[in-house]
C-alpha cells in the first residue's frame, strides 16, 4: 500500500508539475535578435487582447523549426516569428505550420514580398544583405567579392545550417555565381574567419574585433549612426548586386490558441508594430510606415539578385552539403 501511494504521488508530481495554465496564453517562438518585441509590443498586445504572451527565444531561427518538428505530436507554440522562405519550405514539408490570410495583408506595400501565396507565412520585414566593415582597419575600402577574396581570415559569416542570414548569404552567392558558386566558395573559404551559429554571435565577435568584416545587413550604417553617432561601421553591397532577406510569421499547426495567434499576425502588420521595426530589428517594415531619418545611411543595392523558390526547394539540401564539404576542406 505504501509503495502504491508513493508511485501515485510521484505520478501526480510528474504530471502536476508540468501542467501549466495554457488558457488565454499566446506562446511565441522566436530567435534572440527579436527579443525587443517583449519591451512594449507584447505588453500592448496583452492589454488589448486580455491575454498573456509567452515569448520563447531560441539562439537562431533554425532551432525554432527543429523544436516545432519535435513538438509535432504535442503542440505548445502558437506562433513562429522569423521564418524565411527557405525555412518555410522545411516547415511546410514537415506540416508544422498552418495557413492564415491576415485581414491586414493589403497593408503590405510591395506584393512581391508575399513569398507564400498560400499564406502559410506572412512577411513582416525585409532587408538587403550586405557586408559591414570597420573603416579604421582598411586603407582602401572593399567594394566587391574579389576584394574580400584577397584578405585571409577577414570576414565572419553565419552558418547556413543554423542561421537564416547565413542561408541567405549562401543563396546570394549562388544567385550571383550560378553553377560556379562552389568555385567561388573554395576561394572565399580562405577569407572566412569563422561561421558563427547566428547573427547575434557573429556581431559580437565582429564588435570584439576578431575580424574586420562581417556578413550583415545594408541598414548597419544607419545602426552605427544611431548608436554610435558616427560611421563606426560601414556597409557595402559587393558589386552592388544585393540579395533581399524576408522574414515572416506563421501560425503553428494545431496551435492551442489559434484565435490569439491570428490576432498576433494582424498586430504584426499594424502600424504600431511596423514602425518599431526600423530602429529595433534594423530591417525595413513591409507596410508604408515612415522610416526614421537615420535610414538615409542605409545602403541600397543597384541590382537585386534572387533565386526561384522551386530551385531552392529542389537544391537546398544539396547546396548545404556541398557548402559544408568546402568549408571542412578549407585550406
Amino acid at each position, binding site marked *: 500500500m505504501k509503495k502504491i501511494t508513493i508511485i501515485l504521488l510521484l505520478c501526480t508530481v510528474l504530471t502536476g508539475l*508540468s501542467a501549466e495554465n495554457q488558457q488565454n496564453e499566446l506562446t511565441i517562438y522566436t530567435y534572440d535578435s527579436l527579443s525587443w518585441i517583449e519591451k512594449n509590443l507584447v505588453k500592448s498586445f496583452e492589454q488589448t487582447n486580455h491575454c498573456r504572451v509567452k515569448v520563447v527565444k*531560441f*539562439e537562431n531561427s533554425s532551432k525554432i523549426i527543429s523544436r516545432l518538428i519535435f513538438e509535432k505530436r504535442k503542440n505548445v507554440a502558437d506562433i513562429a516569428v522569423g521564418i524565411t522562405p527557405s525555412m518555410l519550405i522545411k516547415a511546410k514539408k514537415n506540416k508544422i505550420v498552418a495557413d492564415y490570410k491576415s485581414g491586414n495583408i493589403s497593408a503590405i506595400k510591395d506584393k512581391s514580398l508575399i513569398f507564400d501565396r498560400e499564406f502559410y507565412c506572412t512577411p513582416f520585414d525585409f532587408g538587403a544583405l550586405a557586408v559591414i566593415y570597420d573603416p579604421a582597419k582598411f586603407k582602401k575600402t572593399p567594394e566587391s567579392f574579389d576584394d574580400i577574396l584577397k584578405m585571409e581570415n577577414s570576414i565572419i559569416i553565419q*552558418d547556413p545550417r543554423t542561421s537564416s542570414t547565413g542561408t541567405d548569404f549562401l543563396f546570394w552567392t549562388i544567385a550571383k555565381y550560378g553553377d560556379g558558386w562552389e568555385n567561388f566558395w573554395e576561394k572565399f573559404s580562405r577569407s572566412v574567419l*569563422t561561421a558563427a551559429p547566428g547573427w547575434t554571435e557573429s556581431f559580437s565577435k565582429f564588435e570584439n*574585433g576578431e575580424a574586420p568584416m562581417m556578413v550583415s545587413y545594408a541598414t548597419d550604417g544607419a545602426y552605427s549612426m544611431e548608436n554610435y553617432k558616427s560611421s563606426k561601421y560601414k556597409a557595402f553591397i559587393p558589386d552592388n548586386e544585393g540579395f533581399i532577406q524576408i522574414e515572416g510569421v506563421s501560425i503553428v499547426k494545431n496551435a492551442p490558441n489559434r484565435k490569439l495567434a491570428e490576432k498576433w499576425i494582424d498586430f504584426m502588420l499594424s502600424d504600431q508594430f511596423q514602425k518599431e521595426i526600423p530602429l529595433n530589428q534594423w530591417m525595413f517594415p513591409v507596410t508604408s510606415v515612415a522610416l526614421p531619418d537615420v535610414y538615409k545611411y542605409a545602403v541600397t543595392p543597384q541590382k537585386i539578385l534572387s533565386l526561384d523558390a522551386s530551385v531552392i526547394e529542389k537544391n537546398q539540401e544539396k547546396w548545404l552539403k556541398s557548402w559544408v*564539404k568546402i568549408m571542412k576542406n*578549407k585550406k
Partner: protein
Amino acid sequence: MNRTALKFSRLLPALYLLPAACAVLFTAAEFFEIDSFSALLNSDTLFIIRSTLIQSSLSTLLCFMISIGPVIFISRNRQDNFLSNIIRITFFIPYYYPVVSTIISFSIIFSGYFLKFQYSLFSIVTAHVFYNSPVMVKYLSESIVKIKREIHESAVLETRSYFSIFRHISMPLIIKSFSRAFFIVFSFCFTSFGVILALGNIRYSNLEISIFTSLNTNLDFSSALGYGFIQFAVLAIINFFASRTGSPELLIENYPSSNTWNLKETFFSVLYAAFEFLIVSLPLICFFAFTHEKKTNYMKIIFSEKFNTDFPVIRSIMNSFVLSSLSALSVTFITYILLKKNSKSGEMIITSAIGISTALLSISFLYVSIIFGINPYLIMLAGFMTLSIPYSYSLMHQHVTGFNRSMLEAALLETKSSLKRFFSIELPVIYPVLILNFLNVFAIIYGEFTFAYIFNSGNSLPLVSTTGYSIASRRLLGETYALNTFNSFFIIMIFGLIFFISSKLKTGRSK
C-alpha cells in the same frame, strides 16, 4: 540468495541506464529512418571520424608529454613541497572547472589580445591539454609514488638517470594507470563539446558536435544515432584494451621521496603549473582589470534586475544549485547501492557509459520531456544522474567494496536489518567518502555544459553554464568575467572542501 535474485543483482547496474535507454529508443522510434542511417556510410562520416581521432589523439599525446615533468617532480618531492602541492591543486580542473570558463580564457588568449589562433586545431588541442593533462599527472604520479622501494633503489645503484629510470623501470610498472589515464583523457577529448563549439570551426568539428548539428539543424535523428553509435563503439574498444593491460602487482606504498633538486624537471613543473594557473586566473585578472579600467561594478550589474531580464543570472544560479544538490544526493545514494551489488559485468556496464553521447542523451530526454509533459527539472535530474554515476562509481568503488568484511559479518549476527547495519557500522566509517562524493558530483554538475546547453534550447530551464555561455557569446566581456569570477570562487571553495576532506581521509587511513 537464490539464483534468480543473484542474476537480478548482477543486472542491477544496467538498471541505472534504463531511463536513458528508454528515452533514446522512444525518440528513435519516432525519428529514425534507415535511409539516413545508411547514408552515413560516406566520406563525410570518415572525415568526421578522422578529425575527431586526430584532435583527440594529438591532445592525449600532448597531455602525456606535458605531464612527464610534473609527474617526475611530484613522485620525487611528494612530501610538504610547495610546487608539488600547487600541481596537485590542478587536479580539480578536469572535473570541476567549468568548461565555459576554459572557453573564455582561450578566447581571450587566441582572439588577438595575445595570439591570433582562434578557430584552429592548435587552439582546440591547447585547451584540451590545459583541461585534461591534470588527469594524466594525477594517475601517473599516484602510481609512481607506489612503486616498490627496492626496485627503485637498485635502479639508482645502477646509476641510471632519472629519465632512464622512468622509461625502463617506472613506465612498465605504471602501464595500468597509464592506460586508465589515457582512456579517460582520450574519452574527454573525443567527446569534447564546449571547447570545439567555441574554439573550433566547421573544419574542426567532432562526432559530438556532428550529433548536435544533425539534431539541431535537420532533426536528423538517424544520423545522430549513427554518429553516437560510432562514438560509443570507439570508446568501448579503447576501454576494453585499456582494461586488459597488465595488473600493477608491484605497486605498493613507500616510494622514497628525495630532496635532490633537478633543474630540468623543476623547470617543466614550474612551467606546467604556471600554464594551468594562468588559464584559471585569466578571467579573474580580466575581471579586475576591466572593473578598474571601465570603472564599472560588473558584479553588481550581473545581479541587477535589468540585466536579469535579458540574462537570468540569479535564476540560473539557483537552478544550478538546486539541481546539482539534488543530483549529487541521488547519485551518491544510487552509487552506494550499485557498489553494494558490485559485479564485474556491472562494472563494465557502468564504465562503458562514459562513451554515451551527451548530445544524443540530451535531445532524447528533451523529446521525452515534451511528449510526456514531464517537468524539465525532473528530466534534467535524470540526465545529470545518468552522466555522473560512472564518475561517482569510480570514486567510491574502493571505499565501499573494500569495506572491512569481518565488521559487516559481525554486525550481521547482531541485526538482520540492513538499514540498521548501515547506520551503526558503515556510515560512521564511510561518511567522509559520501560527503566527498556529494561535493564531487555537485561540482561536476554545477559546471556541466553539453547536456544543459542542448536540453536548454529555448531557455526553459536556464543553468549557470548556459547563461554564462550566452553572455560570453554576446561578448559582454565585463559581465562574462564577473559571472566567471563568481563561479570560479564558488567551485574553488567546493574544491577546498574536497581537498580538506581528502587529506583528512588520508590522515585517518595512515593512522
